[in-house]
């Protein structure tokens, strides 16, 4: 068992793709990490030696990635609205299934806790549930009034959360798809009338492993959204009553935006900030308003994933690198 010490985080590996990276996810075993890039491709990286295999099949950028529970399939969601299932463990992964799933961008795909169900969300404001192993569409419903940016299954397996541009988080009961309640994350939304711009949104949703807390990440203080003038913000909610318990602000990161947050364990939350201050890993706990540790990355980051069992963080960077950092000495 690896003894985690995030204050000792450091970059272990960096591997270069052919185009700026957009997103990344670890496989369940942590043996691989898959990234996506601005040339519409995906890359599967072997963590042991950095060997890269390129996957082609999307006609647009891919922001949404998830693995099935057994780790032998990757599901990617593209900005052309297509879901693709990949046989990700094969020497040269193939597209097993391709589904025209959404009108416009897919911004999030997640696997349910039991692995049986896949959710996809995006700009068409519709939530769609799919049977993971067959790709059969199980349910769909118009859910938000604006683009849906993120989704997360609650560990109880009974609820789904979705977050949108306006900072509205909806909690859905999966058995009948009814709206149980909403969480107010409107501080993540920065409309700017002068620029006629709507900016922000719930860029990432995460839930603590014990299910007691919900985290919403993004940006606030968008005084000049077109000029990247905004700051990172992470909101912490109590699952039981939906109350906002903490607003984690991040001082000294002008132009920052939290692209993703993920629970390392029940006590520690990890987030990655991109934007004009570069790439920064941030670590939060429940007692402190500000992060208890931050670690600068060599280049601006746009996405992050963690593999708690291996103590690893993967970050996708504008400088075309996938970086793997260790969260131990």
């Amino acid at each position, binding site marked *: 068992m690896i003894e985690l010490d995030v204050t000792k985080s450091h970059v272990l590996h960096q591997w270069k793709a052919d185009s700026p990276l957009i997103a990344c996810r670890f496989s369940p075993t942590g043996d691989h990490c898959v990234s996506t890039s601005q040339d519409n491709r995906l890359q599967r990286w072997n963590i042991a030696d950095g060997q890269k295999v390129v996957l082609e099949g999307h006609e647009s950028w891919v922001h949404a990635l998830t693995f099935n529970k057994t780790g032998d399939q990757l599901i990617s969601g593209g900005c052309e609205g297509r879901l693709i299932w990949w046989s990700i463990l094969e020497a040269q992964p193939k597209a097993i299934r391709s589904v025209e799933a959404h009108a416009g961008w897919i911004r999030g795909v997640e696997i349910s806790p039991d692995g049986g169900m896949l959710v996809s969300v995006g700009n068409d404001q519709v939530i769609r549930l799919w049977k993971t192993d067959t790709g059969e569409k199980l349910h769909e419903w118009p859910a938000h009034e604006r683009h849906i940016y993120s989704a997360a299954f609650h560990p109880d397996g009974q609820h789904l959360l979705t977050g949108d541009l306006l900072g509205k988080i909806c909690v859905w009961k999966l058995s009948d798809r009814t709206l149980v309640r909403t969480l107010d994350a409107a501080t993540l939304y920065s409309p700017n*009338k002068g*620029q006629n711009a709507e900016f922000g949104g719930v860029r990432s949703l995460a839930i603590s492993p014990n299910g007691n807390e919900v985290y919403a990440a993004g940006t606030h203080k968008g005084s000049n959204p077109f*000029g990247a003038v905004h700051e990172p913000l992470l909101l912490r909610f109590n699952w039981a009553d939906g109350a906002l318990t903490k607003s984690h602000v991040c001082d000294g990161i002008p132009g920052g935006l939290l692209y993703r947050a993920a629970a390392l364990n029940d006590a520690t939350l990890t987030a990655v900030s991109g934007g004009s201050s570069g790439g920064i890993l941030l670590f939060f706990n429940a007692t402190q308003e500000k992060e208890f540790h931050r670690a600068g990355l060599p280049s601006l980051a746009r996405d992050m994933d963690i593999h708690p069992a291996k103590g690893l963080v993967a970050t996708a960077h504008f400088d075309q690198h996938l970086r793997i950092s260790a969260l131990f000495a």
Partner: protein
Amino acid sequence: MSNRARYACGSMDHALSRRRFLGASGLLGASGILGGVASLPSKVAGAIPKNDYRVVVFNMHGGLSQLESWDPKPSTNTGGPFRAIATSVPGIHISELLPKTAKQMHHLCLLRGVNTAEDDHGKGAYMMLTGRRQTPAAEYPQVGSVAAKMLHDDQTGLPGHIIITPGGGGGRGNEAAYLGPKFNSIHLGGDKPPQNSNKPDAIAQEAEERRHLLRRKINEQYLSQRRSAITDAYTHSYEQALKLMERREVFDVSKEPQAAQDKYGNSELGRQCLVARRLLENGVSFVQITHSNYDTHNDNFNFHIEQVGEFDLAYATFIEDLAERGMLEKTLVVVLSEFGRTPNINLYYGRDHWSKAWSVAMAGAKIVPGAAFGQTNKEGTEVVDGQVDHGDIFHTILRGVGVDSSQSLIVDGRELPIADPAAEPIWKVLV
């Protein structure tokens, strides 16, 4: 929160605009004395034959991305996440953000080889609207003022030059330069009629008429001794305001059938387009609609989804509406910006200023329909064919509405070409 559009790059353009506006509202005193080009009255060398052509300019404020509109480069390093879609003209593809516009492509003509070599907001806007580079030596009239002078019939009772802009408050612009204040714009704020254009209820009609009678009498006494271009401008402004008050309903889109309002969409831009169509129908020669804002150094793609999506419905409906009413044959519709945006995608998913290779769209009047003129390279970084600039476009706009752009105005004995003699119309896009 201010309604004034703010540039991401902290440009001073709007401060300048404000000064210009203040200069204009101090009336017109400064106009016509700019850069040594003398003031009114001006005369065209030969009579100006008025015609029934109109011009509409969509000013995509801040710099519309050509890659997210008229010249997509999908699946290239610079292409971004959006795909190209087929249009009603075989072989011409535009961004998937413009699905409704794609169905009107048979009316449009794309200029894909625009190179203006100016990446500053204010200078770029000046060039696109005047057809000339800014110089301390002279101030040139904007296309709206030129169109008003060459095309407008005063008998309509409406101004010839109207700019619809978010936050515009019913004041006058200062775009006419040596053409004189009569051809400055009237600013409409959003989709609302000009401010203070309704008679206060407390003033009876009879009292109103007596007031104007008195004003005219005093004016006449004064003018008999001290008439000048400035006093003429004052008089014209008053009389134009009175006529405008009488025709206030023209600005009221609620007079339109609900179906028409629905078709244009529930957006400010949609309502502005409907106002524009009503203005054209009632004889206004030039309408400029500002759609703000496209200065997307950050998060370019999310913002273009929002902005171009709103534009697509309103603009495509406008073109279709004009065509169905038979108005497009006499109305030139131009979509321009101060520049385009960089093919390079920056760290923040943004695009910066790029004037070396971008696009302008035209439709109607004497413009060849269903065409794309000019070409950029594979990644959109350079023009490889059909390069044109702001001067060429200015000539083409005038030629497109039947105005000989090679003619000159005689102002205080000086011959002033209405378009830059160093440029010329893009003959290949003119019928």
